[in-house]
């Protein structure tokens, strides 16, 4: 599976496993529609057939009760199927099958009012140490330790997440201040970012995902400029990713976040 346009007004799906969620949403909505239309026909039929007419009197005995029992049991069975057959397995696949650590791209995400800081480990593949005391809102937003050799090659990019098609991405989410919620609609991933905790999530852009820039949204009210807390996920080929990486290396470390912001 991979890129698909799932319909039902859902946004395009560029991830490898997002179709599972789309399928579940579709199945539920078809079921809801059937139930509502069936119920609605009965409802409207009752209203029309049993409207008050002169000389007509209500008949308390005339009741078709079995239908309701079947309807209720039917709903219960459907819910059980959806729950056990779809929702739980999809959730398990999403939350309990992390990608191979060595094959995945690792990024730390540090949310703050009102930006997403993406911290890449750089060529050495090891995240430099960070500490609150080194934080400089403009020059060093995640607080990289300048004395740590692993930190020297690290890249911090504000509001821009670069990923490669077909390569799984592991994110470690944390927040500096309040609760945010990290959401990439086209990847079908969403996770609240709770200050004081680090939470891992992962996703995989499909092999044939459309290249380009897509929204990252903060889904949890986080302050006055919550609406402005927009990031962008850039879906790259390995080549374009390398090109971006090279462009980052030229700049002096730690990166000048101010400039990034303008971009």
């Amino acid at each position, binding site marked *: 599976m991979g890129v698909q346009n799932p319909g039902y*007004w*859902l*946004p395009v799906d560029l991830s490898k496993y997002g179709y599972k*969620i789309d399928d579940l*949403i579709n199945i*539920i909505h078809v079921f*809801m529609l059937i139930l*509502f239309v069936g*119920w609605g026909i*009965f*409802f409207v039929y*009752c*209203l029309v057939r*049993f*409207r*008050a007419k002169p000389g007509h*009197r*209500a*008949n*308390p005995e*005339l*009741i078709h*009760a079995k239908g*309701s029992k079947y*309807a*209720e049991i039917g*709903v219960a069975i459907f*819910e059980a199927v*959806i*729950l056990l057959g*779809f*929702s*739980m397995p999809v*959730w*398990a696949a*999403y*939350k309990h099958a992390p990608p191979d650590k060595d094959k995945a791209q690792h990024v730390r995400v540090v949310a703050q009012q009102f930006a997403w800081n993406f911290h890449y480990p750089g060529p050495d593949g090891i995240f430099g140490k960070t500490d*609150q005391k080194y*934080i400089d809102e403009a020059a060093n937003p995640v607080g990289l330790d300048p004395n740590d050799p692993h930190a020297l090659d690290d890249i911090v990019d504000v509001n821009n997440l670069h990923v490669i098609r077909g390569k799984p991405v592991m994110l470690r989410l944390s927040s*500096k*201040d*309040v*609760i945010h919620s990290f*959401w990439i*609609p086209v990847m*079908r991933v*969403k*996770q*609240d970012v*709770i*200050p*004081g905790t680090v*939470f891992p999530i992962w996703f995989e852009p499909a092999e044939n995902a459309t290249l380009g820039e897509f*929204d990252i*949204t903060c*889904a949890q*009210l986080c302050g*006055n400029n*919550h*609406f402005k807390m927009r990031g962008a996920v850039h879906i790259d080929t390995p080549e374009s990713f390398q090109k971006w990486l090279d462009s980052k290396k030229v700049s002096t470390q730690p990166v000048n976040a101010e400039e990034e912001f303008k971009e």
Partner: protein
Amino acid sequence: MSAGHSHDHGHAHDDHAHGHHELGFIRKWIFSTDHKVIGMQYTVTALVFLFFGFTLMMIMRWQLANPGHVIPFVGSMLSKQLYAGYMNLATEGVLLPEGYNALGAMHGTIMVFLGIVPLAVGGFGNFVMPLQIGAPDMAFPKLNMMSYWVFLPGGLIMLASFFMPGGAAQSGWTSYAPLSVINPGQTAWLVGMIFLITSSLLGSINFIVTIIHMRAPGLTMFRLPFFVWAQFVTAFLLLLAFPPLEAAGVMQLMDRLAGTSFFMPSGLWVSGKAAEWVGGGSPLLWQHLFWFLAHPEVYVLILPAMGIVAEVIANNTRKPLWGYRSMVYAAAFLGFMSFIVWAHHMFMTGMSTKISTFFQTTTMIISIPSVIILTALVISLWGGSIRFNTPMLFAIAFLPMFAIGGLTGLPLGLTSSDIHLHDTYYVIGHFHYVVAPGTIFGMFAGIYYWYPKATGRMMNETLGKLHFWPTFICMNCIFFPMLIQGMMGLSRRTYDPNIYQAGLASLKLHKMISWSAWIMAIAQLPFIFNFFVSMFAGKKVTENPWDSTTLEWAAPSPPPHGNFLTEPKAHRDPYVYSPPGRKDDFLPQHVVLEV
């Protein structure tokens, strides 16, 4: 209070029956201990709050439909700097993000805690329930008065917070910490909430004692009208679910005022510097305590409406409710289950799979009793002789609206589909379908239905229909597009959605929603006119204008202080309509059949 006029003719009976003196205006209408007066106080206050909350939303809808444009009519008023340090909602006529957040938080708070709960429980519960059980008043009339006079300051504090330094609360009606601890304006919200919670507690104790102890002779629990059952379950929810929020409110107040860290984790870095809180707290603790109240709260909002709808449907189909007992059991089960589903609001917080599995399972289970009640109400239509008067129109419109609201809860209650839909406009569409065209339609049905009992006069039918149809259409034009926007991936609580792909794509829907909301405001004018003018000009009625069976219709309209002229006795089930072998198509509970 406004209904004073028509009350007078019942007073002669009152003096006769209980031998007390004429009360002064203040004792009779302001500090009254009469459950009917308190009910009307609650009703009118809550309607005012509802309209105010709706007005806040209409301002927000302008920003969403026309981002960054000057708000017509009120823009300049909102931009006025009242004093130094005053928080403006707008500058130069354009809504500010903090203004948008304040309006949003207060819209939610006002609608839920100052509008619907006081209307459904304080208004209808107070007025109707003692009459329906044949009681002379509530068990504790003074406590009842106190609950209104604790509610009102709570509401006024909330309103006054707009004019306090720092402005009104801006952290959503859910007030998630740490944001709510950091943001200005939250203190007044918390203090107001503590008043409202206290008021609800006083009310709920009173309701339960009244229902258990003060039913008329012969009125066994299974002869109670469904509305009373709904109030009974609701009162238990209020009694047991509100105190944890009170505890949470006290803790958040401590975090704000005493510098404690109940909800503040270690190492916070706020606006460019390390935060002052010592840390070690848990932001999720707030969410757990909040939703432990706020999910039962959903059923506090919906159960009384279901009760009203059941009354109106039984009366206007002219036949007994089908499956009365199963409805009662379903309501009780619903009440119980509502205490163990709260964390389905928190699937995205990173809870463990075991916990989320538990909560999505209970969430699926809780949908079953709702289905039972809804099915019972629809099947009740079968074989009836349906009168389409205004209360009935609102009551039957409630059914499909609540059905949509309930069904759209399914994809949100399942963890996996919730990944995409959580915190989007889909959520807003979903719960508004439950409470706006759902509960509020139930409330309108109740107002049209019991208005003659409260005032002795009917509301105008033509104006009623002029109120119903545009409201019904507009409601759907407002909330259905939100479901679509949510599917498109539009995040809720965004001041300017147009910077997102999903927001740009759904701008047209936003415009449609906003226009529908404004038209709906105009559609409320016939109702307001009808409500006030009918007090003086409505058609006069006797005690039972709807040919109804339950006990409240045995009392005069309006009922005097003490309610009944002779003590009522219940001789049969609540909804004996169209009994075979009788000329009348209704047999009231209190009527003694001659052998």
